[in-house]
């Protein structure tokens, strides 16, 4: 067990290093950060001096080594654009992204499971067909288009919901939350739907097919024969058994939601980490870009690590063979 954990953690570190190296190689092609840092009247001598101070003239290997060394100590440098420690910027923006991801995930799970169960039980019903069509939209339309359509419908035409921003935000220590004000809550609705629609669709389809499968099994028939209520059969026995794959998928998708909130945050001017990253790319703010990519890689690696451990716990065969999951 211990050997397995150590091996997994070492592999994760290699993955993190690869991500960092890849992002560093890509940074070379983004452009010159100095252009966005100074005004147009700044002389070439001053620009060159700035480049030297930032260490941009060093070979890429040296820059990479410096980044890894500092990052391993939790120091991601100072943002070129905002001139504050990157770690502070990310900490400031993280609550917005995490709250949005949490609500999106919850939305995807609750609505997805509900729609999945319903269309699994009444596979020929009108609503089931409607759900299927909706899910097709969720799978096929890109999030920015969904976001813009929702904004036009609910903000411009109907005027019910805000089109952008987080609404009123309250501070709880270091955490800024939108959960405690009405405007904060209604501001969450559109972006959460936009971000969670794909995952909702995925969960719905998964639950639906699992339900169809389970409903055919013998123990459901026996349960009905025992005279159990529909509620007990459908939710107590059938749904429970469909949830194992759903939980796995949801866990993995949570990483996706956090990482891919970039587009949703941009459309809704949501002040989270994804928006911070996009701004950084446009301004060639290398320290922010590096920190964000490493952070996202970390989220994925940690989630995968946990999933691997859970498999190990759940599946006795892995223990017998001594560990490795291929």
């Amino acid at each position, binding site marked *: 067990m211990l050997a397995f954990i150590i091996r997994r953690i070492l592999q994760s570190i290699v993955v993190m290093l690869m991500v960092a190296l890849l992002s560093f190689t890509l940074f070379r092609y*983004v*452009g*010159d*950060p*100095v*252009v*966005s*840092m*100074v*005004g*147009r*009247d*700044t*002389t*070439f001598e001053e620009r060159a*001096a*700035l480049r030297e*101070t*930032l260490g941009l003239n060093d070979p890429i290997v040296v820059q990479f080594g410096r980044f890894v060394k500092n990052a391993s100590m939790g120091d991601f440098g*100072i943002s070129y*654009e*905002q*001139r*504050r*420690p990157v770690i502070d910027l990310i900490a400031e923006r993280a609550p917005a992204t995490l709250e949005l991801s949490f609500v999106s995930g919850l939305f995807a799970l609750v609505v997805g499971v*509900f729609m999945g*169960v*319903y269309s699994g*039980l*009444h596979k020929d019903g009108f*609503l089931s067909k409607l759900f299927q069509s909706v899910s097709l939209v969720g799978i096929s339309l890109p999030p920015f288009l969904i976001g*813009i359509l929702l*904004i*036009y419908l609910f*903000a*411009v035409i109907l*005027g*019910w*919901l*805000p*089109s*952008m*921003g987080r609404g009123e935000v309250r501070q709880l220590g270091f955490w800024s939350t939108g959960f405690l004000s*009405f405007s904060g809550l*209604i501001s969450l609705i559109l972006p959460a739907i936009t971000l969670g629609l794909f995952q909702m669709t995925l969960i719905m389809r998964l639950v639906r097919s699992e339900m169809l499968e389970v409903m055919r099994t013998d123990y459901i028939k026996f349960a009905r024969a025992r005279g159990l209520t*529909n*509620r007990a059969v*459908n939710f107590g026995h059938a749904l429970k058994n469909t949830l194992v794959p759903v939980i796995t998928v949801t866990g993995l998708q949570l990483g996706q939601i956090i990482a891919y909130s970039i587009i949703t945050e*941009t*459309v*809704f*001017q949501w*002040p989270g980490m994804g*928006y*911070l990253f*996009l*701004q950084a790319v*446009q*301004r*060639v703010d290398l320290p922010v870009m590096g920190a964000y990519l490493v952070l996202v890689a970390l989220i994925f690696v940690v989630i995968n690590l946990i999933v691997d451990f859970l498999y190990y716990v759940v599946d006795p065969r892995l223990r017998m063979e001594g560990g490795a999951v291929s």
Partner: protein
Amino acid sequence: MVARKAFSRILVTSAAIAVMLIAVAMPAQSKTFKWAFQSDAGSMDPYTMNNTMTLGFTANIYEGLVRHAKDESIEPSLATSWELTQPDVWRFNLRKGVTWHDGSPFTADDVIFSWQRAMGEGSDMKSFVAGIKDIKKIDDNTIDIITKGPWPLLLGDIFRWYIMPKKWCEENNSASVTGFKSGTEETYATRHTNGTGPFMLQSREPQVKTVMVPNPNWWDKRTDNITEAIFTPIKADATRIASLLSGELDMIYPVPIQDVQRVRKTPGFKVMEGMEVRTVFLGFDMWRDELLYGDVKDKNPLKDVRVRKAMYQAIDIDAINKKIMRGASYPTALMIGSNINGFDEALNKRFPYDPAESKRLLAEAGYPNGFSIVLDTPNDRYVNDEAISQAVAAMLSKVGIKCTLNSQTRAKHFSKIASMDTSFYMLGWAPMSFDVHNTYFNNVQTNGQKIENPQPGQGNWNCGNYSNPEVDKLLNEMTAEIDPVKRQALISKMMQIHKDDVGHIPLHQQALSWGVSDRVDLTQSADNTLSLRWVMVK
């Protein structure tokens, strides 16, 4: 069925929530003004970044010795009057009884401190005060500004140089500007302010939200009725438009060209348009002996004025105006627009669009079959910049010049052309001083990298090094000429020579486009900045 019952319960609940939301969405009556631009101000410290947005935004909080009136003319601000006591000495009488937002008095020491700060490490405002040799304090309310030689343009140069409080800056560790050499982190002044202006900063979250409230002790009579001003940068065009049309914001800019008609047709909104001070133009590499990006070997066709003129006359500017800019541009023959001091209507006649003449000129210059060339263009800087370049490439190909595009983001484009690594490039220029000299000094005067002892910043953006000694001489003369009539004669002569040389191909001035709700009245500035002091909320 249980599931069906649960579902209908959800339907009812969501309908109830919807009704609640309608009730809440009704705005309360207040004089709050909310507006959005496509990007945020770089800093609240007005010396950190010399760009129009940052300086226009902080102008609501800080003030200079002089300021712009509604018609862009110079009027007194922190200085009440000034006179030339010698050709290079300006005496300024400072306004008495002005206080900073924290209540302390404004004095001559603040002006001297601000000059030192603007000249110091990390400041991006050096070019604005470069003409000042020294500032002497006469008494608390009088100063002498000594310029490096006669400097008639002083007022235009310094109107964006705002005065900052000496004591406050020193006490808050902001005596020098956030620079990279002097400790890399921001100073206190990056997110906090203490100005003399009509508005005070209440809260600042960079890239998210900035809130300002009126300064109750402002020295001037108020011309606005705002009780609170909230600024949100909104990057995505569609979202910016949506938040205007949904009534959440009172004003947004810019309105993308394709959305102008929509905003205009929506009742309750209007689009304010006007000529922006920025001119977009094309430049040539005129110093290399061999074309860098192209198929001509051993010589540089762009050195031949006939070739440059052929390229000029191959461009159908009306088509660009109608098809690409949808009318939202002002074709120009000069590097400045009619809203810039020094403009001369008599010279503003373009060489006509004439492909046959282009071909004739090319043949005469020895290129009957044309040649190939690469046009460097940004794709995220000017309105439809990439589309314009594509059109130019297509038009050039019709006269035999095979023009391919190298289209890049601003971060890559500007560092490439600034290092003169280009044969043919697009650039735009907005003279922040509203004077012709700024544009021609930066783009037309011989590039400082190519000569001995240049003036600081000379020809910094003359990326292809157009160089004509006569033009250089006239530009130097006009900086020292105090008589406006003689000065205009120098300007017109200089612009005529540059035009005959086809030193650049001017394309157009962009149109400003602001989306404004009927709830507010405001004044548009030609440099695309918003002054809150002219905003009336109904």
